[in-house]
Structures are given as structure tokens and as C-alpha cells.
């Protein structure tokens, strides 16, 4: 009798758990994802393509590309350096440094935007000086770039630190003893080991840089054709009841998100395989 009930629950519990998971994931992830595309194509392909003929759409795309084009390389260089410093050396205050690097993740995007408005706004000495010299940072492209750099700051470092910690310093030390210099160690020994992790950090950083809304919204001033990035332009369109156009623009970012997820799966697979290869 007891045996029978165990078997019964063995069969029912997995089905129940899988069903609940599917229900939860469908309600919160799958249906919203599909809806982006159905809304964009609601009035047909022509209406979809029509959304991209708008000059404001192109200026928003351009600004988003420029912003990511500056913020991502900066944070990649910083991320690699920070990871190198943290994982290859022992020094006091290391844990504090790691916590500080993670700090932008703990700060609300809106507050991230606010701190740049405060820093460069007309109320500070710096802000007043900038106005006198006719340099615009807030409510202009430089402010958008700065806010984006701030929010995407930890991505690369965060991806690399655990990876490089796991790999240790033995290979680099061997290279040093063979007479290799710092640059050639990095290019020939470290980089091949971390390339997949670095690539994934870069992709994540880029996805966030192109998609950031809260922080950029605070510093941008929402000037159509000038300081609207793609996410801000989506908001403008949506608020103006141009639903199809808003969702058409959204498909660009949704596509980017899907690529990011696929890249993550590939990188995880590569890293796992790399680990298995070094074990055998």
C-alpha cells in the first residue's frame, strides 16, 4: 500500500512542477515576448517598416549606437584591468574594491541619473562653469553617455573576476619565468583563457547600454531628434499612442535581448566544455 502511494506521487509531482513552471514562465516571460512582435506586426509588414522611415527613429538609433560605442569599450578596458588587478594580486582592501565595483548594481537607475544631474546641473560650481563656457552635459549626449557608463560599469569585471579566480595565476607565472612581458602574457596566455567570458560580459554590457531607460531618461531631457535614445523614443511613441511604431522600435531591442540570451547559452556551453577538457 505504501509503495503504491510513493509511486503515484513520483509520477504526479514532476508533472505538477513542470506545469507550474511552464505556467509561471508563460505568464511572465513567453507571452510578453511574443506580444512585442505581434503588436509590431499588427497592421502588417508595411506598417512595421513604415515605422523606420521616421527621421526621429534614425536619430534615436544613431544616438543609441554612439552611446554604446563609447560606453562599452570603456567598460571593457576597465573590466579587464579591474579583473586582472583583483585576481592576479593579493592586497589589502580587495574585498572593499570588489564591493565598490558592484555598487552601480545596488543603485536605482533613476538615482544614477540624478547624481549626474546634481554633478553637472547649474547649481554646482562645475555646472555654472560649464554653462559659462557653453558646454552642455546634462540634457545632452555627454550626460547620456556618462549615465550609461555608470549603469553598465560592473558587467565585464563581474563576469571576468570569478572566471579568472578559478583559473589562478600558474599559467601567467610560468610565462613570466620564461621571460614574457606583461602585454604578451595578457594577449597570449590570459586572453585565450578568458575570451568567452569576456565576450559574454561585453554582450551583456552592450545589451544594457543600448536598453537603459531610467538613468538615461533622467539626464536626457527628451528632446526629439536630439537626446532621445531608442528606449526613450519608444516611450515617446507609446505615450503618443503610436503603438505600432513603439513596438516596431521595441523589436530591435527585443532582438538584441534574444541574441544576448543565445550568446549566454553558447558561452556557458563553451566554458563547461573547456573545463571538461582541462580535467581530462
Amino acid at each position: 500500500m505504501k509503495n503504491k502511494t510513493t509511486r503515484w506521487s513520483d509520477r504526479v509531482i514532476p508533472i505538477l512542477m513542470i506545469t507550474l513552471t511552464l505556467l509561471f514562465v508563460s505568464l511572465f516571460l513567453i507571452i510578453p515576448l511574443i506580444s512585442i512582435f505581434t503588436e509590431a506586426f499588427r497592421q502588417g509588414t508595411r506598417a512595421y517598416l513604415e515605422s523606420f522611415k521616421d527621421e526621429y527613429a534614425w536619430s534615436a538609433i544613431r544616438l543609441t549606437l554612439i552611446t554604446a560605442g563609447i560606453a562599452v569599450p570603456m567598460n571593457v578596458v576597465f573590466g579587464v584591468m579591474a579583473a586582472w588587478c583583483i585576481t592576479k594580486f593579493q592586497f589589502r582592501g580587495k574585498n572593499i574594491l570588489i564591493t565598490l565595483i558592484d555598487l552601480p548594481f545596488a543603485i536605482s537607475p533613476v538615482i544614477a541619473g540624478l547624481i549626474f544631474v546634481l554633478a553637472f546641473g547649474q547649481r554646482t560650481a562645475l555646472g555654472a562653469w560649464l554653462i559659462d563656457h557653453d558646454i552642455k552635459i546634462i540634457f545632452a549626449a555627454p550626460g547620456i553617455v556618462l549615465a550609461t557608463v555608470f549603469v553598465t560599469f560592473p558587467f565585464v569585471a563581474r563576469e571576468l573576476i570569478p572566471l579568472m579566480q578559478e583559473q589562478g595565476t600558474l599559467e601567467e607565472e610560468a610565462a613570466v619565468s620564461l621571460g614574457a612581458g606583461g602585454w604578451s602574457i595578457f594577449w597570449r596566455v590570459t586572453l585565450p583563457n578568458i575570451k568567452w567570458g569576456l565576450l559574454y560580459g561585453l554582450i551583456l554590457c552592450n545589451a544594457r547600454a543600448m536598453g537603459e531607460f531610467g538613468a538615461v531618461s533622467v539626464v536626457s531631457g527628451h528632446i526629439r531628434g536630439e537626446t532621445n535614445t531608442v528606449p526613450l523614443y519608444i516611450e515617446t511613441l507609446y505615450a503618443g499612442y503610436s503603438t505600432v511604431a513603439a513596438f516596431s522600435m521595441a523589436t530591435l531591442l527585443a532582438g538584441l535581448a534574444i541574441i544576448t540570451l543565445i550568446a549566454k547559452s553558447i558561452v556557458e556551453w563553451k566554458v563547461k566544455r573547456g573545463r571538461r577538457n582541462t580535467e581530462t
Partner: protein
Amino acid sequence: MKKRSIIPGFGLTFGVTVTYLSLIVLLPLSLLVWNTASLTFTDFLKAVTSTQVLASYRLTFGASFFAALINAVFGFIAAWTLVRYRFPGRRILDALIDMPFAMPTAVSGIALTTIYASTGWVGSWFDRFGIQSAYSPLGVLIALTFIGLPFVVRTLQPTLEELDKEVEEAAESLGASRFQTFWRVILPSVWPALITGFTLAFARALGEYGSVVFISGNIPFETEITSLMIVAKLEQYDYAGATAISVVMLSVSFVLMLIINLSQYYARRVGR
């Protein structure tokens, strides 16, 4: 313990890291504290305790708490399903869990609003029962659940993978019921991870802006979240008010970050 490394580059990388960190993060952040210091205490108190702001705290903290709670329950179920069972589509499902991380919040915001509006795919179903899902506090809860979804799943997965199946089998062979095994064997070994995931989801929800402002409808005293109050103050050029509210929210985030670090430290000790 302190051993000089023979690898070159410490001076350069340490210098660049600290300089960059100071310029991009620490300096602007200190300006926030500086700006607050220039406020008198009564002004500060008045800004952070106006009735509209108080209503926004209630909604933000309440909705974030329940969203994290929903995520703790369903996140556990999802993590368990992904770790323990093999079924078609599992890998795709696993990859999809990270979608709230990868999807820009504005896109999530308009997508959720469209499907949970009374004319939307899911919203119309709620509407049949007389429940308004978008443009209500429930909408805020939905957006915050979405945004916190990956945290619990991703913190639980490694813990569940390490869980020894033999211990569960032993418990069952000793006559424990399913419920007892779950309550006495599984839960005690995963609860530090569960709490970490819950706190991460809660912390993220508190500061969320993009995905909420569309679905909430921003009705004063009813569906305004605290992040929106900061933006609203800024739009009225009330920099002092915006700063004051930000300092309150920032303090809460730092306390939560401390709790997360402590619970992870504790989890590592339990693990050993």
C-alpha cells in the same frame, strides 16, 4: 599570506581601476551626500514624509515584498524543475529565465502593459473576474515579479544541483513523507540561498523604474512608486526633494546589500 606576485601590471591596473571607479562612481555619488548635507533637517524630513511620498513607499515596499515572495515560491518550483527533471524544451526554458536581465525595461514595460490591460491577452481574462490588472497596484506587482524572476532561480540552481539525492532517499526509506522530506531535509539546506535570492529580487524591485511606469498608470496616491516620485520632483526642479528621497532609498539599498553579503557569508559557512 602576503606573497609578492611575480606577474607584472599591478601598479597600472590598480591605478586605472581606482581612478576610473572614483571618477565614474564615487565622486558623483558623494555629490548626492553633499547635496543632502546642505538641506536642513526639517526640510529633509518634510520632503521624505509628505503624504504622497509616504503612499509611494507603501506601494513600493509592499509590492516589492510580495513580488519577491511570489518569486521565492515559483522561483523554487522553476529551479527545482530545471535541475531535477528532463523534458523537451528544458534548455530553452532555462535560457528564457534570464530574459528580464537582457530585455530593456522600457520594452518589458510596454509589453506587460499591453497584455495585462483589460483588452490584452491576459488582462481580459482577469477582467472577466472583475479584476483590473494594468493601471492598478496589481500591475505594479506584476512588473516587479517579472523584474525579480531570475534572481531566486539563479541563486537556487547551484545549491539544488549540489543537493545530495541520497539524503532524501535515506529520509524516505526511514519513513518520512514527501512533505517531511521537503520540510526537514531539503528546505534547511537551501534556505540561505532562498533568502539571498529573495533579498536580491526585493532590492532590485525597490529601485525599478522602466518596467513599472507604463503598467502602473501613475495615479497619485494609488500607483505611484518611489522612483517615479524622484523623477517627478526633478521635473518640477525640486532638486532638494529628489535628493532627499534618493538618500532614503539608497540607504535601504545599502542595508539590503549588507544583508545579502552576510547571508552569503553564512551560506558559505553552512556549506562547509
